[in-house]
C-alpha cells in the first residue's frame, strides 16, 4: 500500500511485544522486569490497558485469575486496587473456594495508571505504531516492521493483538473495518502471520451501548452497592478506603422483546452476515430473546464507567441490531425511557489463532521464540488475557536465557486450567474462565493464590523481595496459628460446656484440641474467643484462612489425593523430539492429533480428544522402550 515508505532499522531489542492491552501490558512488564530490553508497540498510546467492554475486573474464576497474576508478580491486581470505584466479594453465601472478588473499575483511570506503570518501567520502551509485518531472520531473530517504516530487530516476539487483527464492526446493515471501540484495526499483520504458516480463524464478540447517566431514571431500578469492607485484589495492598459508587439492576420489558423480534432480519447474526462464532456465555440480547423465548424479562446491570464520565455500561444488552432499532430498544427498558445513547452497541469480528498451535509455554510449536497471549489465542476477558500475557512474558525470558519454561498445571492454578484447555483442547468459541472448568476447585482458592504461586514467581525472578517477605510472614503466621490451635486442649468442664451450648454447639464428653473443636460447623474462630483468651491478635485474612483449612480439612485432603493421582500422568514427560509417525501401533487419528498438539506429558496427551486409552498405553510402552534404549532424555 505504502510502497514508498523506506524501511530502516530503528532499534535492536531482546523482546518485542505487539499490542498493549491487558495481555501486552503484563507481558512487556514481566519481560522488562526480568532484565530484557523490551519494546511494546501499540496502535495508540491512548488505548493502553483499555477496557472496551465491561467496566469491571474480576468475577467468579476471573477474580481468582487476578489473584494468581498478583501472586506471580504481575500488575493487574495492583492496578485495579488503585482504580476501583466499587468492590464486592461474590458468592459469600457459598464455600471459600468459590468466593470471588469483583470490582468496578474507573476505566480511564485504569488505563492512565497502567500507562504510567509502563512508562516508568526500566528497560521498557512504549511506542505508538502499527506493526504491519513480521519477518524471521536467518539467525532466528525477528524483524518487527511498522507502518512508519521503522523496524525493530528482536530476539523474541510476543503477539498480543486482542481483537484488532482484521477487526470488523457490525451494526445492523452497517459494517466496516475497525478495531474495538472505533479504533484503527490492524489490517496487514494477520496476513503476515498466515505467511508464517500460522492458522487463523474468525471469532466474534459484542458490546452493549453506553448511556448518558442523566438520562436514566434510577428511581425505577434496584441499587447494588459494594461491600462495606473492601478486600483488595493484591496481596500487597493492605486496605482500600474509597467512597464506592453504586450499580443498578433493571430489566427488559415485553416491548423490548417485541422490538427485537420484529427486527431480527436486520441483525447480521441472524441474517448470516456474521458467520464466525461468538461466546455462549456472552450472548447478544437478540440471542437471549430468541433462545429463551419463555422468559418475559431479562436482567440487566447498569454500571458506571468511571468517576469522570457520565457513560453508563448496560451489561446484558450487547447487540448488533441497527442503530435505528437500538434507540427504541434501549428506551423500552425499565428506567431507560429517555435513554440517550452515547456509544452504540456493536458486534466485532476479528482474527485469532487456533491455540492448539501453541506449547504450554505459549510459544508457537513451529517457530521458536514467537509467543502468543490473550484474546488473539481465542480467549475472552481482560483477566484471561492478562494471565496469558504474564506467562508469555515470563517464558519469553526463560526461553532466551535457556531455561525451562514456567508451566502451571491444572492442579496448581486457574491459569494452568486456562492454558491447558486452550492448547490441548482448543476452543471453538471465545474462552471464558469458569470455576466449573477446574477439577480441583477446592484447592484453587482465591485466598491461597500466594501460597500456590508466589514461590514460583520468586524463583522466576518476578516476585520482589518485599512481596516475598510478606508472603513468608503470612505463611508463618498461618502455620504458627494452626500449630497453636492444635496444642490447645479443651477439657469438658462445666464452664466450657456452657460456653459451647451458648454458641449453639453440643457439650464435650472428652478433651479435644481447639483445632478439632473448630471443625464443628456451628463454631467459628471468632465465637470461641472465651475458650482461648490468650490468642494473638491476627489479621482477618489469616484468621479466615486458618478457619478454612480447619473446617474443610477432610474435603481438602480428598482433593489432594486426587491431585496425586493426576500428577502421576502429568509427570510422565514426553521427549520433545518424539516422532509419532514411528509408532506404528498408534491409530491414525491419534497420531495426527499428537503430531499437531505435541503434548508435554502423558497426562496432557490423555486430554486430547481423539486420543484413546489404548493410544495412551501404546505411548507409555513406547516411552519405556525408548528409555530402555538409552535415548530418553
Amino acid at each position: 500500500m505504502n510502497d514508498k515508505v523506506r524501511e530502516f532499522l530503528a532499534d535492536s531489542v531482546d523482546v518485542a511485544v505487539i499490542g498493549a492491552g491487558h495481555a501486552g501490558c503484563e507481558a512487556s512488564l514481566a519481560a522488562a522486569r526480568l532484565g530484557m530490553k523490551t519494546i511494546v508497540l501499540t496502535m495508540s498510546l491512548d488505548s493502553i490497558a483499555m477496557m472496551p467492554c465491561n467496566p469491571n475486573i474480576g468475577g467468579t474464576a476471573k477474580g481468582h485469575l487476578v489473584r494468581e497474576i498478583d501472586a506471580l508478580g504481575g500488575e493487574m491486581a495492583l492496578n485495579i486496587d488503585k482504580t476501583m470505584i466499587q468492590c464486592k466479594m461474590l458468592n459469600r453465601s457459598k464455600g471459600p473456594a468459590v468466593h470471588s472478588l469483583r470490582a468496578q473499575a474507573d476505566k480511564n483511570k485504569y488505563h492512565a495508571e497502567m500507562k504510567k506503570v509502563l512508562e516508568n518501567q526500566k528497560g521498557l520502551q512504549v511506542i505508538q505504531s502499527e506493526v504491519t509485518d513480521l519477518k524471521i531472520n536467518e539467525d532466528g531473530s525477528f524483524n518487527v516492521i511498522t507502518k512508519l517504516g521503522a523496524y525493530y530487530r528482536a530476539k523474541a516476539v510476543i503477539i498480543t493483538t486482542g481483537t484488532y487483527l482484521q477487526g470488523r464492526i457490525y451494526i445492523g446493515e452497517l459494517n466496516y473495518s475497525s478495531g474495538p471501540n472505533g479504533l484503527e484495526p490492524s489490517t496487514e499483520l494477520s496476513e503476515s502471520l498466515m505467511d508464517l504458516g500460522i492458522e487463523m480463524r474468525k471469532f466474534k464478540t459484542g458490546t452493549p451501548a453506553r448511556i448518558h447517566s442523566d438520562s436514566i431514571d434510577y428511581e425505577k431500578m434496584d441499587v447494588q452497592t459494594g461491600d462495606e469492607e473492601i478486600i483488595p485484589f493484591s496481596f500487597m495492598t493492605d486496605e482500600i478506603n474509597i467512597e464506592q459508587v453504586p450499580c443498578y439492576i433493571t430489566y427488559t420489558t415485553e416491548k423490548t422483546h417485541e422490538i427485537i423480534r420484529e427486527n431480527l432480519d436486520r441483525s447480521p447474526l441472524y441474517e448470516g452476515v456474521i458467520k464466525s462464532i461468538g461466546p455462549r456465555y456472552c450472548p447478544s440480547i437478540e440471542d437471549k430473546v430468541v433462545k429463551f423465548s419463555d422468559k418475559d424479562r431479562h436482567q440487566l446491570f447498569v454500571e458506571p464507567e468511571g468517576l469522570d464520565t457520565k457513560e453508563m455500561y448496560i451489561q446484558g444488552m450487547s447487540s448488533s441490531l441497527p442503530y435505528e432499532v437500538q434507540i427504541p430498544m434501549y428506551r423500552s427498558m425499565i428506567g431507560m425511557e429517555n435513554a440517550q445513547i452515547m456509544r452504540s452497541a456493536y458486534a466485532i469480528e476479528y482474527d485469532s489463532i487456533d491455540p492448539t498451535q501453541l506449547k504450554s509455554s505459549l510459544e508457537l510449536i513451529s517457530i521458536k521464540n514467537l509467543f502468543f497471549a490473550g484474546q488473539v489465542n481465542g480467549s475472552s476477558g481482560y483477566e484471561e488475557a492478562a494471565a496469558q500475557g504474564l506467562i508469555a512474558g515470563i517464558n519469553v525470558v526463560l526461553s532466551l536465557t535457556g531455561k525451562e519454561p514456567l508451566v502451571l498445571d491444572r492442579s496448581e492454578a486457574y491459569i494452568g486450567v486456562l492454558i491447558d484447555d486452550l492448547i490441548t483442547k482448543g476452543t471453538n468459541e471465545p474462552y471464558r474462565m469458569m470455576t466449573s472448568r477446574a477439577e480441583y476447585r477446592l484447592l484453587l482458592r482465591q485466598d491461597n493464590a500466594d501460597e500456590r504461586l508466589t514461590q514460583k514467581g520468586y524463583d522466576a525472578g518476578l516476585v520482589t523481595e518485599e512481596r516475598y517477605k510478606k508472603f513468608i510472614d503470612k505463611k508463618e503466621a498461618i502455620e504458627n496459628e494452626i500449630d497453636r490451635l492444635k496444642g490447645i486442649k479443651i477439657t469438658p468442664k462445666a464452664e466450657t460446656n456452657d460456653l459451647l451450648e451458648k454458641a449453639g454447639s453440643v457439650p464435650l464428653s472428652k478433651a479435644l484440641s481447639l483445632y478439632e473443636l473448630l471443625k464443628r460447623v456451628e463454631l467459628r474462630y471468632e465465637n470461641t474467643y472465651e475458650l482461648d483468651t490468650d490468642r494473638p491478635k491476627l489479621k482477618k485474612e489469616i484468621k479466615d484462612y486458618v478457619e478454612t483449612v480447619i473446617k474443610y480439612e477432610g474435603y481438602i485432603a480428598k482433593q489432594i489425593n486426587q491431585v496425586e493421582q493426576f500428577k502421576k500422568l502429568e509427570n510422565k514427560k514426553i521427549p520433545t523430539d518424539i516422532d509419532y509417525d514411528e509408532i506404528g501401533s498408534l491409530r491414525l487419528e491419534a497420531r495426527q492429533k499428537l503430531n499437531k498438539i505435541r503434548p508435554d506429558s502423558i497426562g496432557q496427551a490423555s486430554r486430547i480428544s481423539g486420543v484413546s486409552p489404548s493410544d495412551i498405553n501404546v505411548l507409555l510402552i513406547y516411552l519405556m522402550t525408548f528409555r530402555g534404549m538409552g535415548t530418553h532424555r
Partner: protein
Amino acid sequence: MNTDTIAAIATFLGNAGINIIRISGNNALDIAKKIFVKNGKNDLDLKPRYLHYGHIVDDNNKVIDEVLISYMKAPNTYTKENIIEINCHGGLISAKKILETVLLHDCRAAERGEFTKRAFLNGRIDLAQAEAVIDIINSKTDSSHEISVNHLEGRLSREINEIIEEILDLLANIEVNIDFPEYDEDEVTINKVKELSESLVNELDRLIKTADTGKIFKEGIKTVILGKPNVGKSSLMNFLLNENRAIVTEIPGTTRDTIEEYVNIKGVPLRIIDTAGIRDTDDKVEKIGVEKALSKVDEADLVIMVFDSSTDLEEDDEYIINYVKNKKVVYISNKTDLPRKLNLKKYENIEKELINISILKNQGLEEIINKVNQMFFEGSINISDELIINNVRHKNLLIKAKNSLKEVLNSINNQMTIDFIDIDLKQAMESLGLIVGKTVSDDLMDKIFNEFCIGK
C-alpha cells in the same frame, strides 16, 4: 509408576477347580488383611511367599469361601508391585463375590491386560516383547470397553442414563449459581439436592440388588434350543425357566421368532434362545425365522438339539445335525412317553449321548441340567469372562455412585455449602458415566449454556 491398586480374576472362569483373584499395588496387603480371616481373626501378619489358609469374608463379616492366600512382596513379583493372590473354589460365584468384596476397598477392577502392562512398565518384561505387549493391550482396551457398554441390558442403560440426566440437571443449575451468582436464575436449594440424592440412593440400591441376582447384565452361556417344528422346544424352555425361579428379563427378539431368557441353573448362568422350528420351507415369513435361528447357532456357546422320539429321522433333523456338528451340543429326545420311532443308527455317537426325556410326563429332565453343569465345570463350554468382569465392574461403579450420594447427604447433614456438596454429586455422575461409557463433564458445560440464560 501407577500406584493405584488393581484387582481381577486371574484364571479363566468355570473350567477349573480353583480360581485365583489377583490384587496388585500399594494397597494389596491392606485389602487382604481386611477381608482374610483365620479362626475368626483378621488383620493377620501375612508372611510373604507362604500360602495361608483361611476364609474371605464380605463387608458383613459373612464367609464367602474357604481360601488359600499368598502375599508376594514388591519388587520381586510379576508386576514388581505388591501382589496378593487368593485361591478360591472354582465356579463362578465364589470368585465373583470375592472380587466384588475386594473392589469395595481402595482399588479398582483391572483393565484387560493391565497386569501385563504393569509388568512391562515396571521393567519386568523384556524389551523384545514390547510389540507383542502393545498388541495385546491395544486390542483389549478398546474392545473391552465396547463390549462392556454393548452388553449393558437396554433397560439398565436407560435407567442409568436417566439418573445421570437428573444429576446433570441439578449440577448444571448449581454450577450456574456458583459461576453466575449475579444472575436471577433460581437457586438450587439444599432440600432439592437432599430429596434427589435420597431417592437416587434408593434407586441405586435397587439396581445393585438386581445386579446380584444376575438380572441386569447380559451374562450367561449363549444357549440355543434347536429342532424341527413341534418337537417341544418351547416346552423345554419353559421347563428350564419354571424349574428355576431366577428368570429375569424378557428381551423380545428382533423377529417374533426368537426369544431370549436368562436363567441360572445350579450356578451355571444360561442365556437361552428359543428359536423357530427348522424345516425346509417356501413360506417367506417362516423362512426368515429359520434363517434367524441358524444365525443364532453361529454365535452360540451351546446348542440343545431336540429330536422327536415318536417320529423317525427326517431330512430336517439331518440338516440340523450337520449344521451344528462343530458346536458343543446336548442331544435330547423328547416325547418318550410315545412309542419310539426315532432311528439314529446313522449317528451312533449321538445315540450314545442322547438324553431321553418326556416333558409331558416330567421325566428325565434333571439329566439335562446335570449334563449342562458337567460340561460347564469340565470346561468344555465357557462363558466369556470378559462379561463377568464387566458385570463386577459395573456393580462396583453402582456402589461407588451410591457411596458418593451418601457423601452428599453426609455433607448436607454437616451443613456444608452447595459447592462442597457438588463435589460428590459430580463424582456420582462420573461413576455412572463410566458404566454407560460417556464423559459427562463435557455434557455439563453444554447444559449450562443451553438451559440457562446467562452472560453479559
